[in-house]
C-alpha cells in the first residue's frame, strides 16, 4: 500500500466521521435539546418557554382572566386559573411532545414542542 493510499483512507475516514458528528449535532439541536412549552390564546401564540428552566408565568387575558403556568423539573402544569371549571388545573402535568393542557373557558392551550416522544398517540378523557 502506497503512502498516498493511506493518506487517502485517513482523509476519507475523517470526512465521513466529521459528517456523522455534524449531522448528529444538527439533529440534537433540533429535537430533544430544546423542548419548549408553547402557550396559545385563542389560537395565537402567547409565549414560548424552555421546558428545562423552572419558572412561573401568569398568562393574562384582555378581560382579566388568567392561568398560571408552572414549569418545574422538566414538566409543565397549570397551578391556578380564573376559569370556573378548573379542568386545566386538574389536568396532570405534561412533558411529552404534543401533550396539552387546555382551558376551554379562557381558550388557553399549553403544548409541549420538541420534547420527548410519548409512547401513546392519544388518550381517552
Amino acid at each position: 500500500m502506497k503512502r498516498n493510499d493511506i493518506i487517502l483512507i485517513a482523509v476519507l475516514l475523517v470526512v465521513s466521521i466529521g459528517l456523522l458528528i455534524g449531522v448528529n449535532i444538527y439533529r440534537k439541536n433540533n429535537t430533544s435539546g430544546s423542548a419548549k412549552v408553547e402557550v396559545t390564546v385563542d389560537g395565537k401564540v402567547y409565549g414560548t418557554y424552555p421546558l428545562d428552566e423552572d419558572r412561573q408565568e401568569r398568562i393574562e387575558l384582555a378581560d382579566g382572566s388568567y392561568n398560571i403556568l408552572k414549569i418545574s423539573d422538566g414538566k409543565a402544569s397549570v397551578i391556578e386559573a380564573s376559569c370556573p371549571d378548573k379542568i386545566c388545573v386538574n389536568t396532570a402535568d405534561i412533558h411529552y411532545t404534543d401533550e396539552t393542557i387546555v382551558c376551554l373557558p379562557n381558550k388557553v392551550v399549553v403544548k409541549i414542542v420538541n420534547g420527548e416522544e410519548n409512547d401513546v398517540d392519544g388518550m381517552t378523557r
Partner: protein
Amino acid sequence: MLLQGTPCFYLVVLIGEYMSKGKVLGVILIILLIVFIVFTRKGLFGKGDVAEEQNRYTATFIDIFDTRTEIVGYAPTEDEFSKKATALREELINYNNLYDIYNDYEGVNNIKTINDNAGVQPVVVDEKIIDLLKFSKEMYAATDGRVNIAMGSVLSIWHRYREAGVDDPENAKLPPIEDLKAAAEHTDIENLIIDETAKTVYLQDPEMSLDVGSTAKGYAAQKTMEFARAQGYSNMLLSLGGNIAGIDGRIDGTPFRLGIQNPDMDSDVDYIKKVDIKDGQCVVSSGDYQRYYEVDGKRYCHIINPDTLFPSDTFAQVSIITDDSGMADAFSTALYNMTIEDGLEFVNTNDNIEAMWVYADGSIVYSDNFEQYLVD
C-alpha cells in the same frame, strides 16, 4: 469546486497531484457514496429525490363541541398536514353548529331551533340532523332506553344546578326530586316526530326538549372519519374530547396506542391502562371525573340515570372499544348507567364491543375479550 480550506479541498489537491484520472474518478465516487449514505440515513434530504419523509403532526382545536379536538397525522410538510386537519375541522364545525342545543347560528336550523319550536311547529332541518336523530332512536332501542336524547327537560335542570354549583361551590345544591320527576313526564322519545319526506322534525310535547350530548359528539366523529377515508386520508387519529378513532395505524406500520385516562385525577399515573387499536376502531371513556360538581362533599357527575333521575355512582369509569364512534359514545353512557351484571351481559352478547369498568377503589372488570387490546 468545493470550499477552500475544507478537508475535501485538500483531498482534491492530493488526488490531482498523485493519482491517475481513473483513480480520481473512483475516489470521487466513493466520497459521493459516503456523503449520500450518511445524509439519507439521517434524513437531511427530507423531501426530494430520496424517499419522502413523513413527519408526524398534531393539531389541537378548542372550538368544537365544547371540548378539545386533536388530530394526529403524517405528512411531508406541516402545510400539507394543516390542509387535511383544516378540512376535518370544517366538517366538525358544521356538525357542531347543527347539533348545538345552546346557541343559535344565523341561517341555520339546529337542535336548539327544534327545541324552541316544541309544540309549536315542525322545523325544516339539514339531512345531518335527521340522520343523527334516527341514529339516536336506534341507540334508544339498542340500550333499552338508557340512552334517551328526549331527556333534555331533566338534563337541563341538572345542567343549571351544576353550573351554579361550579360557580359557587359554597352554595351548591341538588335539584329537588319533585322538579326532576315533573320534568321526566316529558321525556317520551315517541313524541320526537321525524318526517323524512318533508325533512322536518317536530316535538309533539311542548315541554319536551332534546339533549344530544350522549350521541352527537360520537356520531360527528364517526361521520368525520368516514369523510377522511373518502378523501383518501391515511394513518390518522381523531380525538373529539377523548372519543378517539383511528384510520390505519402509525406510519411505521405499528398500531396506534391509546392511554385510557386514570379516573383518579389526583394520581401520578396518567393512564390506568394502555390499548393498541386496529384500523377503524375507536375508544371512549365515560366517567365522573371531568364534568361534575360537589354537594356536601359528594360528587355528582353529568351522566344522569334515566331510572333514578340522579347521576350514577356505581363506577368511576367505563371504557368501550368498538368500531363505530357513535355507538361507542352511546354505549359507554348506557353502561355507566347499568349494573355490572347487565352491562357484562349487554357487551358479551353484542358483537364487536368490548368494555372495561373501573370502580372508585381502582378495581377493574373486563368484558370477555377486552384484555386482548391491553399492552404492557
